[in-house]
Every structure is written in structure tokens, then in C-alpha cells.
């Protein structure tokens, strides 16, 4: 009703009613007409009940005036303090931004916003987990407690430790089918009282649930509980290995609920996924992966290299640029120059084996003749490209940044 009143006022170009003074005589007239109309509705005769005082003018203008004054009277009943005009709306405070652990990413986005949902999406090997661990390391370094709700039970503790995550401050929820869950599925007991005096054979779950859906359900329920518990600096939902079709089944209302739950709290809600699924509920959306042009060039170059390799030509001819430069230019993952690098003679023996690891070669080959790069060569200096797709925090055009990752030996 109030919105109708505002639109009427706005349409007629008059000032809003609660800014104008009330007219006493109109008010009395309106109340008289309303009283008479009420009586009419009860079955009385309008001719006998309509008590309109004598005023100059025609009857039509009188009725119009009555209706107008009735509307004004209704508007005047709205207390001025209950509605804030759009011009007086306070500017919503910008969320606090904290470091994501990657300076290049901080320079791009300003960091990760507290009290908001941030999505990091990308295909496999695009650097999503690397970013997640960097964010977790930064948060635990600040003394915050963090959670990883792991839909696929994919977290590697050695990688987390190598990334600098303080494991004592990290709560890991490993979702998946569990025996306890099988026995005590809430669906089984829904609507019935649960008796613990029963045969063990009866406890075996009768229905078969889709595994992925089951994991997803666990993820969402665990996230709900953790958001309700509060007090965490970062809550990460790792949906990176879930198929996009399954992840898209999460209703938008769920993401909206998560966004509302995390709002006005110091918690960062971070979702790792293959494709953006939260829609407008996410305040920051980062797309990881190579730019398309570079990707196509890289794949084409790979194919050329493989063909050249098969035909016995030197791979170096196909890649005339300096090795280091090409490696830096690679979009992500090991690129063709890396392979050329190895074939040029940068053997595994050139890289010192990390402490605790023993490098061996196959029987009949010497170490220096081994023509393939080692772990360190393959994984050090991988470039990760992050593209800012959407940021509700400030109006920035979509842009991208590239940063390097390194290999840590934790095992």
C-alpha cells in the first residue's frame, strides 16, 4: 500500500505526503465521507447517511476532492520516521578487504572481502587450490580459524603445510559417504520415532542415494552449521571436483541464504568450483585459466611439437624464443617451451633432489642421460592467470593478472 502511495505522488509530481502539511478541513471531510461509506457498506442508505457540508462547486469536483483527501489522509498516517527517502539513504559501507596471500591477486581485486561470498572458478589445474591454500595460509597467519568443507575429500595435507597453512587452525570437513551416515540417515527416521532397540540388520540403509548428491547435501548442511556457529575467519567450500551439472543443482536460494548468513560478519566465504554457480550472490568472481588466445596458441604449439617430435625434428626449431621467457608467458601449466627446455639438455640431474626425496633413474640409463625434466622443473614457475569477472565492491572493468607458483617439497 505504501509503495502505491509513493508512486502516485511521484507520478503527479507532487512532493511526498509526509513532507507536506496536513489540511485540517480536508481531514474532517475525509473522515466524514469514510464514515458514511462504512455505513453504506453495512447496508444503510447512502442518501440518508452521506453528510457532506455545504461547499461551493459541482458534485463531481466534490467527490474528487473527497477521494483525494482520503488518499492524503492515508498517507499522512504513515509516520515520517518509518520511511527513508532514497535521497537520504546511507551509503552501504564497503566490506573490509583482507589479503588473499597472493600479492598479484590483491593488486587486482583489493583482496578478499569479509562478510561476502567469493567465487573462484576454473577448470582442473588452473590454480584454484593453489589460491585456496594461499588464502588459508594468509588467514591462519593472521590468527584466524578457518574451515575447508571438502566435497571430494581432495585436500592434500602436505600441500597445505607447504603453503604455510597452520594446520592447528584449520578445520577440515571431509564429506563423503560414511557408515555412520548410512546408519543414521535423517531420511530414514523422518516422521517416525527412532528406537535404538532394533536388530542390527534393520539398520542397513535400504535406499541408495546418488553419491554426488549425497556429498553435496553434506557440504551444504555442514556449511549451514558452520555459518551458524560463527567465529571463523574463512570458510571455504571446495566443490572443485564436483561435476558442473551437480554443482548447478544447488538452488540459488541456498547461496542467498549463505550470503545473508555471512553478511555483517568478519567471515570470508570462499567457493571453489569449475563454473560460477552462485549467480549474483557472489560479491567477487574470479575466473582462473588461460586467456583463450594464448590457450589456442599453446595447444597448437603443443601439437606442432608433438608432430615434430614424432618426425624426428628438433623441437628447438619450433620454439625459437628463450626458454625462460616462454615459460613465463605460458598461460598455465607446463607449456611447450618447458618441454623444449628439457629436450635441450636440462636433465633431472641438474636439479638438486630435495631433502627427504631420492631421485632414481630407470635401469640402464644414467642420471644425466635422462631426457625428462624433474618435479621441480615441471612445476616451478607455473603461471596462474586470474581474471576478475565481477566485483560488486567497486566498478572495475574486467581484467586479469598472472602470477607464478612454485613447487614445495613436503613429503
Amino acid at each position, binding site marked *: 500500500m505504501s509503495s502505491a502511495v509513493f508512486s502516485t505522488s511521484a507520478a503527479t509530481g507532487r512532493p511526498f505526503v509526509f513532507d507536506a502539511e496536513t489540511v485540517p478541513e480536508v481531514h474532517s471531510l475525509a473522515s466524514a465521507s469514510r464514515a458514511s461509506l462504512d455505513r453504506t457498506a453495512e447496508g444503510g442508505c447512502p442518501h440518508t447517511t452521506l453528510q457532506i457540508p455545504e461547499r461551493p462547486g459541482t458534485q463531481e469536483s466534490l467527490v474528487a476532492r473527497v477521494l483525494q483527501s482520503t488518499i492524503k489522509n492515508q498517507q499522512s498516517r504513515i509516520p515520517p520516521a518509518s520511511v527513508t527517502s532514497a535521497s537520504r539513504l546511507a551509503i552501504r559501507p564497503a566490506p573490509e578487504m583482507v589479503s588473499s596471500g597472493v600479492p598479484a591477486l590483491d593488486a587486482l581485486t583489493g583482496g578478499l572481502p569479509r562478510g561476502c561470498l567469493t567465487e573462484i572458478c576454473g577448470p582442473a*589445474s588452473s590454480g584454484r587450490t593453489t589460491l585456496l591454500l594461499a588464502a588459508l595460509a594468509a588467514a591462519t597467519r593472521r590468527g584466524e580459524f578457518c574451515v575447508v568443507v571438502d566435497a571430494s575429500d581432495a585436500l592434500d595435507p602436505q600441500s597445505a603445510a607447504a603453503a604455510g597453512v597452520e*594446520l592447528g587452525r584449520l578445520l577440515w570437513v571431509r564429506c563423503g559417504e*560414511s557408515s555412520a551416515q548410512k546408519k543414521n540417515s535423517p531420511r530414514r527416521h523422518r516422521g517416525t520415532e527412532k528406537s*535404538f532397540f532394533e536388530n542390527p540388520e534393520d539398520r542397513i540403509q535400504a535406499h541408495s542415494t546418488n553419491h554426488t548428491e549425497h556429498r553435496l547435501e553434506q557440504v551444504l548442511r555442514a556449511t549451514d552449521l558452520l555459518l551458524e556457529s560463527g567465529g571463523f575467519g574463512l570458510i571455504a567450500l571446495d566443490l572443485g571436483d564436483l561435476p558442473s551439472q551437480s554443482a548447478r543443482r544447488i538452488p540459488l536460494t541456498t547461496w542467498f541464504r549463505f550470503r545473508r548468513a555471512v553478511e555483517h560478519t568478519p567471515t570470508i566465504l570462499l567457493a571453489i568450483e569449475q563454473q560460477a554457480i552462485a549467480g549474483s550472490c557472489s560479491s567477487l568472481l574470479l575466473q582462473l585459466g588461460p586467456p583463450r588466445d594464448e590457450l589456442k596458441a599453446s595447444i597448437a604449439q603443443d601439437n606442432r611439437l608433438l608432430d615434430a617430435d614424432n618426425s624426428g625434428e628438433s623441437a628447438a626449431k619450433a620454439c625459437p624464443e628463450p626458454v625462460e621467457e616462454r615459460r613465463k608467458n605460458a598461460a598455465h601449466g607446463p607449456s611447450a617451451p618447458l618441454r623444449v627446455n628439457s629436450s635441450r639438455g636440462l636433465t633431472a640431474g641438474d636439479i638438486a633432489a630435495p631433502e627427504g626425496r*631420492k631421485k632414481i633413474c630407470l635401469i640402464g640409463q644414467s642420471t644425466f642421460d635422462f631426457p625428462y625434466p624433474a618435479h621441480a622443473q615441471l612445476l616451478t614457475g607455473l603461471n596462474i592467470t586470474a581474471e576478475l569477472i565481477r566485483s560488486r565492491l567497486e566498478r572495475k572493468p574486467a581484467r586479469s593478472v598472472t602470477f607464478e607458483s*612454485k613447487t614445495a617439497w613436503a613429503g
Partner: protein
Amino acid sequence: MPFACIYVPTFPVAAALRAEPELKARAVAILEGKPPLENIFAVNEKASRMGITPGMTKAQAELCAELALRPRSALQESAAHAALLDCAQSFSPCVEDTACNTVLLDLTGMESLFGSLPEISRAIYHRAAVLGLETNVATASNPDAAMLAARGFSGVTVIPAGEEAEQLGALPIEVLFPDRLEEDRTEEDQKEEAGRLLETLDRWGIRSLRALAALPEVALSERLGQEGLRLQNLAGGISPRTLVPVEAPMVFEEAVELEYAIVLLEPLAFLLNRLLEQLCARLASRALSTQELRLTLELEKVPGFDQQSAINNQQFLLQSAIENRQSTICFVRTLRLPLPMLDARVFLKLLQLDLNAHPPGAPIVKIHLAAEPARPRSAQGGLFLPPTPEPEKLELTLARIAGMVGENKVGALELLDTHHPEGFRMQRFVVEAPQKSLRETPASTLTEEKSAVTALRRFRPPLRADVTLENGQPMHLVCRKKDVQGRVLWKAGPWCFSGDWWEREAWSRDEWDLALQHGETVALYRIVHDLLGGGWFVEGTYD
């Protein structure tokens, strides 16, 4: 030197009402004896008004339909007595355990802590009510006067110093003989002696303490001896004595015996809630918390219950009851908390979740709950400290999540000193308040930004793959489960690891890092050749 006395009238009934508070509005009688020879042992005031008196048989009492009959429970009475001691200990360290229904406490110096004597008396009364006991509280300048006032006056009574004789004078002579008030089983000769004295005084026309105090001392001594003088001093409120203080044991246990075995979780939760509230009230009165709750459920023997396998499951204890020479099965669950807590609702939810995951498997006939006392945690908050989850909420959340995903699937990580690829274990996630504020943290550690480290995403369990080798190196990979297949674009390795060769679970493996075409992008995988078991596995992807 002010003293206070806490007295619980009709103690067996009060103990039963403490266990079942909903009976407070009803007439209650306590039965004693072995069936079918059960007699009424104690009654409350409502039952007394209905004509129920101690000594009646159960059959006679059952004629009254509104009467609630309960068997006498030693467990309930000991718990009520412990609660009475806890109540007294919360006000004074000097407490005398006079009788199971009477506690005396020395209030010297307590005015500065708790206020004036009337205020202390009212506080004691309310504290006892919180602990589930309807009591009489009296304060006086000597212990016996306080005790007599508590026995004689209901509610809270404060006797100013010097007015003991006047205040106590109106009391009947029976308050001097507690065994006449409480139908307790004292020694037969003591009971006879008390009965003889009371009869004598009654024949003399002495029916109040004022009359007894007014008797001439010598004549009384000649007729009744030293006992007569002692009684006269008590009646006059002039019998100074020192308290015999006791140290209340730090045992917090509550138990309830059930008339009918329960098989559903909901009524069990209802009873647990009551026991937990009583335990928490007792702990709170002693300014303590608990870090460990031990729930023992005595189970009924049912035909379908496999006793031996249950005992082998180590959640059960076989206890021998010496009285009836029958063994009982007890189901024991221990709830260990990371931090001392004192919240009955949290405890109840945790126990419910635990029993959901570990049902007893047989009907329950007796519930016993014990709390291990601990000092309450003290934490100093700070404006500049990072947010921290509340321990109670977090524990509840973790228990709920553990009920969903499994007990060993939620917690903190702990790396093990091994090169095994899964060299870690899950441990309990404990929130400890940060010791240092951010201001105290060295700036270098805060500003230190490590470069991102390439992370591995593991497939648990590893995926079996078919690998085509060429010159001993993988050239083509097919793993249908994850749709990982294709020609190897790049590779690195092998890295050989082995360990635990001295144990049965020895392992030895070669690791390779591969790059495969994955749709429009390139994906990096770690594959493993199991040298002992044979076969190739995709262990994870670099992401």
C-alpha cells in the same frame, strides 16, 4: 558467630521430588520394603492431609487414587544429600554434615561477601531451590539454636543474637527429638529412650521449649539426669558448641532408576536433561565446570541382545550385583570435551548426537551420569584479536557434522613423521584463544607474503589407470572413472618412494607427473606405479 542450618523436611520425599519435579503438586508417598510387604515410609504434606500416614501398607495407600507412590531410592537420597552439601559449601567452607537432611554452616565473616544474615538466608534458600530441594533455613548465634529453628519453622528464619530462648520458646517439644520428626531408622534403644523422655515430659505438661527452659535445673537433673539438662540448654538456645567441619567430596553423580524400561531416544533425552540440569546446578554452586561426562546405562536383558558381542565391542561393562547374584549389562559412553564447559543444553545435545551414532541396543532400566569436575576456563577477550568460534557452539557444530560425515572425517590435521603419501591423521579441533594480539605479533611475520605453492588435489582412493609405456616411460594414460585419458604431453619422473618395509604394510612406488590434454586446457596429474602390488594409479591433480 552466626551459624546457619539447612534442613530438608521429609527427606526421602524431597529426594524423590528432586528427581521428579512434576510431582511437587501432587500427594506423594515413599514405599519401603520388598514386595509384596511394602509399607509407607514417608509422605509429603498433601498426602498427610489426605490421611496417608507412615506405616500404612501399600494396599491401603493405593485406595487413594490421587496418591503417587514411589519406591525409596538410595541413589536419589545420596544425590540429594550431595546437593545439600554443595549448597552449603557454596556459602561457607566450614560445613558440618549433621544428618542426611541437616547441614550446619559457619557464617563468620560471610556478611562482607553475601550481605546481611537475612540476605544470606534467603540466598541459601534460593540456591537450595535451584538444586531441587525444598528446605527450611535458619540462622542463629549458635548451631543448635539454628538447627532447632530450621526444624521448627518453615521457610527462612533469622534469630537475632540474644533472642534465641524467646524465638524458640513457641516450638513444640518434638523438635528436640529428630527421630520423632523423621521416621528414620535410628538405633532401637535410642528411639526407645527418646520415646520415654517425650512421654515423661508430656506427663509433666511440658509441650513447648519455653516450658522446658523454665524448669528448675536441679530438679530436672535429679529426674532426667544429664540428658534432661542438655535438652533444657537446647530449649533455651544456650548450648554453645563447635562445628565438626567436613570436606564435601568432589563427586558429581546423578542417577535415576526407572520403573519401566525405556526404548526410545526421546524419553531418554527427557531424563538426561533433568540429570544434566541437576549436575550443572551442583557444579555451578561450587564454581566448577566439567570436561568429561560419563553416561552409564544399565540395560535390560532381552532375547535378541547379543551380550557377548556387545561386551567385545568394549562399550559395555559387565557388573556383578552382589545382592541378587545377577549380572547386569551396563552401556558406557564417555563424552570428553576439549575445554571445561557448563551448559546443560549443550551437554544434552552432545549426548543425543552420541547416542544417535552409538545406540545402546537394549532397553534401559537405570541411568547414571557422572561429571568430572574441572576449573572453569578463563579467557581474556581483546578488541584487536581475530574472531574465534565459541567453544560450546563449535563443539555442538562439530558433533552434528561428525554425525553427518563420520567421526573421523572432521577435525584438525596432524602431519606424521613419515614419507607415506597419506602421512597424516585427524585429531580433535580445539579452539585456543590466541595468546598474542596482532599488535604484539612481529610485523615481519604479518607482512611476509609467501609465493603461492602449487597444490595437489588428491583422489581418495587413487584411481586405477591403464598406462602405456614406451622405453619405460608413460606415453598414454586411460582412467575411465574420472575421464582422464589421452596422450602424455609432458612428463617428469620417476620419483621412487618406499617405506614401512619392516612392517606388513610395506609400500614402494614410483611417482610420475604428467600433463594431459583436458578438454580445451592442459591438466597436470600425478600418477603412481605401485611396485609391490602392481598397477598404475592416478593419485591426484595439480591445481
